């Protein structure tokens, strides 16, 4: 493959930039990078499709707000676990676990909202998510561990 030299007037090249890392050719594809960013931070849903029934849009907005509140509650719970029961063994670990759950919830809230809104505007099924399962399992685990730690502490 020949790489075009600068000065080739009148020609546009759309070849990917090619580099070599540890002897293995590495292809940098800007479009793939944009796709990754778009996957994490979807664009304005209003740019596609048509306006759905406003009730669905508002329901989606309330769902987003509920996830944000869940994240805030988990963060407050994590801080509370560390500050209110500092003498209980493992309270810091519990606090950090709750804060990690809070971060995961906050980090995906906007993405979920935007993907749901986009799907509604395009008349497509809502995208699946593992976050509810992850959240339920994580919070249940933290609760059970906290109960066990309290009992062990009292013995």
């Amino acid at each position, binding site marked *: 493959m020949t790489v075009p030299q600068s000065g080739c007037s009148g020609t546009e090249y759309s070849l990917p930039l090619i580099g070599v890392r540890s002897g293995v050719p590495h292809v940098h594809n800007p479009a793939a990078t944009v796709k990754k960013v778009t996957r994490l931070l979807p664009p304005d849903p209003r740019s596609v499709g048509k306006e759905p029934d406003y009730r669905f849009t508002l329901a989606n907005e309330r769902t987003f707000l509920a996830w944000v509140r869940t994240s805030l509650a988990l963060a407050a719970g994590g801080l509370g676990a560390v500050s209110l029961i500092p003498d209980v063994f493992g309270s810091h670990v519990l606090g950090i676990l709750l804060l990690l759950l809070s*971060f995961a919830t906050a980090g995906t809230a906007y993405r979920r909202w935007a993907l749901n809104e986009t799907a509604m505007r395009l008349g497509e099924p809502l995208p699946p998510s593992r976050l509810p399962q992850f959240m339920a399992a994580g919070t249940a685990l933290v609760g059970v561990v906290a109960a066990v730690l309290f009992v062990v502490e009292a013995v």
Partner: protein
Amino acid sequence: MGSADSGLPARRPMNSIGGGLQHERTALAWERTAISMMVAGVVLARFGAQEVHFSVGFLGIAETVAGALLLLWAGRHDDELHSPATPPDSVPQVALTRVIGGLSVVFSAVALAVVIVRLLN
């Protein structure tokens, strides 16, 4: 209607009720989120100032102020949120959704960092 005399908004149209009071429920959801932000900010301010350094408390104060501003916005735009939207009206609060989503990510990251710093010290 009396709205011009009293300064109160006009009666809400029946279709806002027929839609299951969607707008009112959404306005209340914004207000609950704002109050949650304020509570979480107070918790962070207390923890940061007492357990790490008083300057960390300002991050909690910032979160509380952000929650208060959101609450003021929700109150000020309460009637707008109750407006009788019908399809082709655009109702999503895209900019505010991005701001609140971003703020909650920042708040969670700060809280996590503060606890880790406290654990290491």
